[in-house]
């Protein structure tokens, strides 16, 4: 991406993902989101005197799984360290994290932007505990006159995934994030609910003269929690850095924060003011030894990843675009697969899933996972179209009824008498009367005006309230007029 005709941007990301284990990383408190303040807490996550952490093995399983899905090396020997800093949401005033020996080493993933494929390297991924939350009494931190701390989130397991500075444009950054979140969702290590803060992004970005081989000075903007904020934040920050450089000044290496309301990044602390975290090995936890059998055991639990699933759908006849749309979210893709096990025509099914089904769900603000129409029910509806019991057009209204009543397609068709008229005898009578009633159109058709047949078919469909089998009507009508 060329900025102001002379700069190239360089970006690397740190992504914090909440792992969706049932309990916290070092105690048995629930990780459930929400809950009354300070109800999901115990002496361990409150940092009470004498409390000791015990590592939740499930967190390690999830970290290994995510690491494998992201093509990372899984360390045989890793350990926890303490990151020391004072903040009221940090119950021990240190965060138990991993410093120099993280669980996941080098890896990466492939993105595609404008049909160009590119590999984005992952430097590392490590486990750590989340902090609590400050709750301010006023609307904003500046108008607040008191704050309380909610430690429900303290100790929720996080995986911090650090990328290489491999991204050169905002679309690349967004493609990387989308792909990353997609993989984490597919592996079910995180629910990736951004609105609940289960994924947070730190953006490291710098500019350099086009052609330069060294990196410029970067800034780090912390704690974004949606793709759209990432995009807006980057647009702002890149433009800001370009202005600084254009003015002949130097970009200051600093930590910045994104102000969503104003749409600007603001300086938080400079390199000189940066915390000295005084990392040292966590003496309350033994080093983590992961033998290869453990890794293989986890590898066996890896689901089909989006890439593989997309390839499989293409083999079934879907276009690359359609396969991409279907596999975008695991929920949609799982829904599609479930329907496919009851109905074989992938292409038709895809059209329905991407079209009417998605539209219906969206207009009802319903996620596919919560759809009242099961995949099996959808497959049954498809089958009714294929067998000619109902037309595609009728099927659309049946689908809506299925959504609102939860009933099976067959039941609705029967109850409402929507079955297509495919009985030649019955249709011939109607066709005869339509021909008799529209001599002009008949004459036009016979005179070579092909369009006239459309009008006649329309009249027949009208007479049958849309229930006539359109293919059959066409054939019979042509035979009559021949």
């Amino acid at each position: 991406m060329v900025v102001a005709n002379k700069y190239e941007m360089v970006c690397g990301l740190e992504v914090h993902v909440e792992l969706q284990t049932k309990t916290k990383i070092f105690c048995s408190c629930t990780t459930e989101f929400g809950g009354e303040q300070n109800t999901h807490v115990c002496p361990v996550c409150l940092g009470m005197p004498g409390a000791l952490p015990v590592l939740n093995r499930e967190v390690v399983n999830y970290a290994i799984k995510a690491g494998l899905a992201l093509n990372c090396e899984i360390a045989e020997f890793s350990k926890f360290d303490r990151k020391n800093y004072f903040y009221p949401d940090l119950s021990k005033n240190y965060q138990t994290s991993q410093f120099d020996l993280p669980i996941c080493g080098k890896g990466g993933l492939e993105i595609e932007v404008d049909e160009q494929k590119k590999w984005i390297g992952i430097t590392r991924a490590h486990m750590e505990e989340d902090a609590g939350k400050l709750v301010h009494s006023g609307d904003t931190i500046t108008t607040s006159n008191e704050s309380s701390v909610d430690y429900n989130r303290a100790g929720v397991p996080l995986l911090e995934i650090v990328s290489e500075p491999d991204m050169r444009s905002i679309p690349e950054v967004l493609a990387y994030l989308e792909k990353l979140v997609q993989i984490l969702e597919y592996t079910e290590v995180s629910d990736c609910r951004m609105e609940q803060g289960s994924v947070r992004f730190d953006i490291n970005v710098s500019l350099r003269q086009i052609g330069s081989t060294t990196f410029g000075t970067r800034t780090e903007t912390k704690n974004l929690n949606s793709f759209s904020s990432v995009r807006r934040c980057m647009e702002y920050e890149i433009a800001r850095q370009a202005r600084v450089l254009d003015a002949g000044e130097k970009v200051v290496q600093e930590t910045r924060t994104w102000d969503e309301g104003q749409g600007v990044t603001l300086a938080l602390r400079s390199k000189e003011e940066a915390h000295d975290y005084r990392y040292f090995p966590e003496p309350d936890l033994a080093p983590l030894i992961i033998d290869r059998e453990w890794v293989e055991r986890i590898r066996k639990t890896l689901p089909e990843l989006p890439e593989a699933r997309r390839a499989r759908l293409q083999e079934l006849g879907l276009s690359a675009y359609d396969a991409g749309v279907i596999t975008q979210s695991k929920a949609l893709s799982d829904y599609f697969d479930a329907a496919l096990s009851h109905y074989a025509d992938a292409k038709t099914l895809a059209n329905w899933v991407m079209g009417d089904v998605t539209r219906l769900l969206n207009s009802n603000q319903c996620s596919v996972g919560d759809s009242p129409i099961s995949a099996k029910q959808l497959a049954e509806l498809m089958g009714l179209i294929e067998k000619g019991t109902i037309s595609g057009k009728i099927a659309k209204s049946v689908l809506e009824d299925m959504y609102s009543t939860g009933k099976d397609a067959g039941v609705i068709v029967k109850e409402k008498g929507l079955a297509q008229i495919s009985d030649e005898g019955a249709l011939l009578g109607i066709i005869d009367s339509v021909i008799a009633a529209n001599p002009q159109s008949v004459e036009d058709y016979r005179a070579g005006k092909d369009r006239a047949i459309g009008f006649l078919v329309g009249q027949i469909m009208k007479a049958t309230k849309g229930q006539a089998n359109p293919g059959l009507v066409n054939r019979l009508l042509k035979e009559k007029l021949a």
Partner: protein
Amino acid sequence: MESVSIGKSVSELHELLVHKDISSIELTKAYIDRIQTVDPSLQAYLTVLEDEALALAAKVDQKVAQGETLKPLEGIPMALKDNMCTEGIRTSCASKMLENFVPPYNATVTNRLRTAGTILLGKLNMDEFAMGSSTENSYFAKTRNPWNLECVPGGSSGGSAVAVAGDEAAFTLGSDTGGSIRQPAAFCGVVGMKPTYGAVSRLGLIAFASSLDQIGPFTKTVRDNALVMNAIAGYDSLDSTSVPYETPDYTKFLVNDIKGLKIGIPREYFGEGIDPDVAKGIQAGIQTLIDLGAEVAECSLPHTEYAIPAYYLIATAEASSNLARYDGVRYGYRADSNDVLGMFKKTRAEGFGQEVKRRIMLGTYALSSGYYDAYYLKAQKVRTLIKQDFEKAFEKFDVLLSPTAPTPAFKFGEKSADPLAMYLSDITTVPINLAGIPAISIPAGFVNGLPIGMQLMGKAFGEGSLYRVAYTFEQNTNYHTLKPNLSREVLTCGSR
């Protein structure tokens, strides 16, 4: 009225209870009376739990009445250092910071001793957050040495040593990060064991330095010590540094026989700074062991001189992080301020004593960016070398032997103005914590009327060998039978 049962060992008291010569309530009352008599002078206790103790004793008596068999520690009155959490009972760490802290949970040792049927008499004084060697750093009280009320009891578990020496509890627990059980045991003439790191759960022990802290018993006799270890040692899945190790019955090592046992005498532990009279006393002890058939030879632990600096870097580094949680937000002392940072600063400035602040600053410095490699990392390397010194020595010897402390108990104020001198007096004890091995201090004589201690060091999980040597020595000497004079005259004179 003072009961005749006061001053007896745990195993003797057990016999009295079993044979109904005394009830648990009577025994408990006798100890409470004793505390009321001597503690105004000795000041070993920070909290006395009379009602709770008597209620527990009543339950034990009920069991006796119903003809149930008593476990070895059942009905035995004891007390805990005030850094071990006791549910519903203030646990202060002898700090203003936790002056009103009442934990909602028990330490594992508290639970285990409760399960063993012991009677908790109260909580004992200590150096604030276990930082010190004289118990002078307590925010609350100055604990006195029963052998000479003008002398310190040692530290940091001063209260635990004094309570046993002064017959204010049948046994106590202390914690040892760099000698905090063994040195006060030596100063007060009692038996004190620092077990192998990982042998006793640290859950609920308020941390000073996590990789060094270990809980252990103070007792009158070696047998008692083994009995208490039987109750408190063993794997705890809630302490990740606890070792899944099958704990033996420690009393089976109590045999009066050390023929052929190889004992090494590390020459570095008799070097500069060791009081010649102490050295002489320990030499006499060594002769006793030789006479009893031990094979004794000199050996070397060449990296000993680096133990003190390494220890004071590692221990303070961990402490600086462990003590960060005391910020006034969730529990403990809170100073008023207009903003959060101000509250943090003021709370910690007012809530911690001088020695604690000194160590937090030392540790913070040692971990600081740019200094980490030179200090913390180097100290860890030294730690490895010290560990290897011991491993090498234990290829040749079953047990190593040294004075527990370079001097007998010193006077109040004698060293508190010179922290470095105080730190240097830990030279014989801190290497053991760095290596994670067990060591016991047993009474080994007197210098100027003050007890001195003999330290026996063993390989990891070699507590059994230590008990064997200690028991044999004890059976062939009478130091453990001698008692300080705590007559009314001495006590009133001392509490002037």
